[in-house]
């Protein structure tokens, strides 16, 4: 060994007194095995879930990782957030060279603490974290962490897949006491069930050669969990609130217990008048909903039972802010005061996952309010200033929602809007000048999910930022885009379509090819599809919403030019939708361009993905088509 390394290794040679069992484990693991140090991979990952009772769960995770590149040094980061319901029991880590010699290890003083919440949100927690790295690659990182949860409510799923290959993964569930639980295997076998010497039951799952996770274009979120085990404790106790997930009804009953009493205004609360029962119920609901949108703000402030219990409606009324369950609870209280019956509903928004109706569990990430009407049900998003009572955002459509009523939970599928409900219609006149610049005057009218999304973006921006946003929608079409004027209609009124009147100047819009000019007439609604070829695709695809985009532009061409080729029209049709276009030359140098793209595919299972791929690549190609103008004579 060179003197340099000797000096440095001597400095690192101080051993701690604390017994480190993993040091023994790793020695045993290495015996007789050849380890591939050429690329980063997990040699082993082991999770042990020890269930002590309904109020105590200890989760220990131990990993042994070959780190072979700089990026993978991030595996040397570890953290645990402690709350009133979770406690860190141990954090360990050490790094060994390829010969098994210890290079460095985590010491107590290396573990740092922070109680910072992200951004403006607030949650009561204390995060302990560390970072252990070594300059020389490759090396072997051995790390473990042990966390105690004060409730089986937090029983974690087991997902051993990582962004690098995993050679061997193991899960062990040890029941120290009989606790009712259920599991669901995801693409694996098991468990092996055995009994320990103390009478505890052991459940063991093992899987070898887990391939690395590779993200895909618009993958359906639930398909990202590819291998592992899902769990639920059929009975649990969270902060004194006992519950059951034997059924959706029982789980809903538990949430009802948390929520009960929080949605009733006390008599002292003022400022709740003005929602007369003379007004028809739907209008009353609309008025209350709009009032709430104007007056309240979304803000996270988690303190009670790790953020599961909503704040009281009195408090939200006073502060005028809260998270989704606070604002939903508040809205329900307002409805009650106005004589309208409403309930909270727990959901897992479509952009994040999917509730399996056959596996009741605490799988939710959001709370909304539901109003059953005589001939309809209203699904009310309390955190959006852009949606309406008739039009919830796309992430609430077509999902399983757990409506929580006094008699418990009821799992119901929310409706899915039709493509025609979500339109973006662009109508304009466009003058193409001899210098190839284009002046565009027209309007974009948005409805449904398209309006909700655009409103959400624009209301969060200042006037100048809105203008910049509009310019960016067109900036791929020309070398320079200048906004001469823009007006936003009904930006603050979600009950009307959103209309954007625009007057733009696009420099160098038409490109040159000698005496020809060419341009793509799809000024606004360009179609981009980056899906993997079918042979490579592994996950189902998910589109945010069904929609229709229409373009209707009358181009006035410069004098002396004509459209090359005759009038054209074409369409691509399938069960996933339709794209059609037409370009018609007219007298006085006019060209009328019309296109329409109807997208009906919300979810595309893997089995039919090849057909979808074929449809979308054809549509993309058609939408990128150029129109060519030829000058009658001379060069341009």
């Amino acid at each position, binding site marked *: 060994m060179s003197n340099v390394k000797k000096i440095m290794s001597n400095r690192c040679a101080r051993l701690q007194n604390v017994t480190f069992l993993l040091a023994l484990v790793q020695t045993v693991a290495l015996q007789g095995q050849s380890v591939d140090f050429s690329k980063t991979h997990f040699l082993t990952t082991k999770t042990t879930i020890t269930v002590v009772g309904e109020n105590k769960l200890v989760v220990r995770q131990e990993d042994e990782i070959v780190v072979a590149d700089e990026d993978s040094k991030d595996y040397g980061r570890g953290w645990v957030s402690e709350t009133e319901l979770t406690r860190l029991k141990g954090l360990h880590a050490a790094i060994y060279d390829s010969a098994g010699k210890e290079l460095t290890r985590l010491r107590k003083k290396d573990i740092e603490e922070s109680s910072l919440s992200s951004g403006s949100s607030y949650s009561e927690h204390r995060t302990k974290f560390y970072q252990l790295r070594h300059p020389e690659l490759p090396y072997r990182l051995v790390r473990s962490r042990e966390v105690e949860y004060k409730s089986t409510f937090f029983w974690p799923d087991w997902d051993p897949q990582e962004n690098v290959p995993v050679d061997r993964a193991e899960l062990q569930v040890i029941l120290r006491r009989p606790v009712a639980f259920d599991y669901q295997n995801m693409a694996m076998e098991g468990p092996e069930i055995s009994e320990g010497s103390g009478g505890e039951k052991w459940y063991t799952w093992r899987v070898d050669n887990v391939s690395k996770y590779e993200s895909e274009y618009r993958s359906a979120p639930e398909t990202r969990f590819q291998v592992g085990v899902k769990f639920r404790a059929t009975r649990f106790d969270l902060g004194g609130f006992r519950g059951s997930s034997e059924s959706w009804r029982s789980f809903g009953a538990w949430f009802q217990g948390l929520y009960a009493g929080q949605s009733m205004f006390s008599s002292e609360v003022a400022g709740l008048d003005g929602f007369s029962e003379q007004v028809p119920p739907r209008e009353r609901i609309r008025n209350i909903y709009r009032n709430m949108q104007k007056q309240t703000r979304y803000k996270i402030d988690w303190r009670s039972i790790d953020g599961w219990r909503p704040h009281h409606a009195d408090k939200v009324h*006073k502060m005028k802010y809260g998270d989704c369950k606070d604002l939903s609870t508040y809205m329900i209280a307002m409805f009650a005061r106005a004589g309208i019956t409403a309930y909270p509903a727990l959901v897992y928004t479509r952009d994040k996952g999917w509730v399996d109706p056959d596996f009741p569990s605490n799988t939710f990430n959001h709370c909304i309010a539901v109003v059953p009407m005589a001939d309809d049900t209203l699904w009310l998003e309390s955190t959006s200033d852009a949606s309406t009572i008739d039009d919830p955002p796309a992430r609430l459509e077509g999902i399983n929602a757990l409506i929580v009523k006094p008699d418990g939970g009821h799992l119901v599928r929310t409706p899915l809007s039709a493509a025609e409900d979500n339109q973006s219609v662009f109508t304009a006149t466009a003058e193409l000048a001899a210098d190839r610049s284009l002046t565009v005057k027209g309007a974009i009218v948005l409805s449904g999910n398209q309006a909700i999304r655009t409103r959400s973006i624009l209301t969060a921006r200042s006037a100048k930022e809105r203008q910049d946003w509009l310019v960016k929608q067109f900036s791929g079409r020309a070398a320079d885009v200048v906004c001469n004027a823009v007006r936003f209609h009904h930006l603050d009124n979600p009950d009307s379509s959103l209309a954007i009147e625009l007057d733009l100047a696009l420099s160098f819009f038409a490109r040159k090819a000698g005496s020809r000019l060419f341009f793509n007439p799809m000024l606004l609604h360009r179609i981009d599809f*980056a899906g993997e070829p079918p042979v490579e695709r592994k996950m189902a695809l998910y589109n945010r919403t069904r929609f229709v985009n229409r373009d209707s532009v009358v181009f006035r061409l410069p004098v002396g030019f004509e459209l090359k080729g005759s009038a054209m029209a074409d369409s691509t049709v399938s069960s996933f939708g339709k794209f059609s276009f037409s370009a018609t030359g007219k007298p006085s140098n006019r060209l009328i361009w019309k296109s329409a793209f109807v997208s009906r595919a919300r979810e595309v299972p893997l089995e039919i993905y090849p057909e979808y791929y074929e449809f979308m690549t054809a549509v993309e190609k058609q939408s990128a088509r150029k129109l060519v103008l030829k000058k009658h004579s001379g060069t341009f």
Partner: protein
Amino acid sequence: MRTHLLCTVIVSSLFAVLNLSAHASDIKKYGKVEKEYLDMTVFPADTTASAVKIFDVAEMELIYESAVELYFTRHYQIKILDESAKSYADQSIRYWHEDKVRRMKAHTILPNGKKIKVKNFREEEYKKNYKVKKFTLPSVEVGSVLEIEYKVYSKYFYDLEPWSFQSEIPTLESQLSLRLPIGFVFNSKIHNDEQYRRVRMTTEEYLDPSSRRRLEMFIWRSVDLPAVKDEPYISSLKNYRARLDFQFSAYQDRYQSVKFIKDLNTLVDEQLDGRYGSFLKPTGDVKNVVAELTAGMTSGKDKAEALYKFVRDELEHDSYNAYSPREKQDKLLQTRKASGSEKNLLLLAMLRAAGLDAKPVLISTRGNGRIDASVPFLRQYNRTIAFVKVEEEIILSDASDRFIPFGSLPFSALVEVGLILEKDNPQFIRNPNRGVKSQSFVQSKTAISQDGLVTGTADVRAIGYASRRCNVEVENSDSIEDYISDEFAGDLDGIEITRLDTVLKATASDTFKTEFDFELPGFAEIIDDEIYVRPALFHCMSKNVFVSQKREFPVEFGYRSKGTELNTITVPVGYDVVEVPENKVINSKYFTYRRMVTNLGEQLVFSRTLELKNHTVPATDYEQLKHDYARIVDADQEQIVLRAGSLSKNE
């Protein structure tokens, strides 16, 4: 009677106290909003503003009794004009973890004048470093005024916080006042106000209760300040916001006279005495390491390079950002972990151990703002780099970036001025940002087929910062194929890489090269009987990087760069070239663009060069720059037209 006298004394004292504290609060009374601001629906001077700071006033007071304490009081009001500004209701006040925040109060003043108080102030802490007071103002609506006041107590008086007069929203009034006890001397400097001279300094007398003497309070005030917002291609907003900085200079009383930093010499002394200065004397362990690393070398430059590489590669980088070290030399060697400045200080020790002429240099990294060489303010620096002179050549080194070779500086450290710390001889070193610091070159051979497929081979080279960028991307990519696709795809939808350099690895080198084969299905578009194809593949702008119509501040590209692309295109058999783009040259004060296409019959040769001649463009030339970039985008998108078996003349 005695009682009457006692009351009079108490009342007089009370009056005196009220008179003393009148300066702190008579400027703005908490809870009072001028009607014109409460009624305001749009800010006339900037109708696009979503909010306005009505006032932002602060007072710093040093009090010296048994010990010195700093009291900082701040009071501000924000008027909400637009929905998008409601986020100002979420406030976070950050402060040093040993300081104490007292008398924090806040409320929302509704348009009808009603006030709703904040009752809950939460505290969070990051490491044992700083704390944050978080709170949300309730019931915020458009038209509300948010009002916040708080006081911070600190025992750290020598490092007064800078005061920024401007923010991302317009400010109607900004003021800082400073009260110092007798004997304390601070230097102050106003930055970024040379052009408009908006900040005025005045003084006011007041009665100091402890000395019972009339002293001067210093007041800096500015009104009607426009917003300073971030824009693309800007190094740091600190270079543009009007700001006031302080530095503790001296203390004197009848018993003692203590000088801190009053000029460069005292600044150097302050730095070099202590842990920082210990790096000028290499330890035994450092000497041993140096001897091992430089064994057999005779050239000073070779030694310097070997030591630089060792520090750069053998110590893990820690993101702690300051010019001073936390640990000593031997500890850094032991733990093999160091911040950027610690690495450079260790390098300094090693260079000196090798007998080389090496000194520490203080800089302010690009993101930290430019330094003002006219003031000896220590706080304006945030990194130490190493100066070494070998064989009459001066080399500045910053070993914090794994991909920067010896002799170059990371982009963050590419600044024009640094301060060499040398006892009795401090001086500034100029490092003019001249010359092309980044070059990229792609040479391709492509062939077009009749069905629109383009196939080809590309040879890529990069030098300087372009090389660094390529190496970083190689390092961060999951595979070499991903790197090539992501790096070179641009707007080349559907590019397929059919051959690549499988042994490509990220290195710290000033040059980078690789090659690959590719296919672009459908890249050449077939329209009727013609094929349209864009000859520019990789170095091609498809949209203008400048979107805003106006610009407040200079465009800072950071360094001069040059990109060249050559593409030899083979025409499909049986096809003639019908249209070829005319050669284009755009020559401006700031860049040169040349694009040429030469028709050789069966082949076309395309070449494109874009060279930045100047790395900074003043805001007054922004419109022209934007227009010129639009011309480049237009030229890059021009197409070649081919037709099957027809005349080869232009029509």
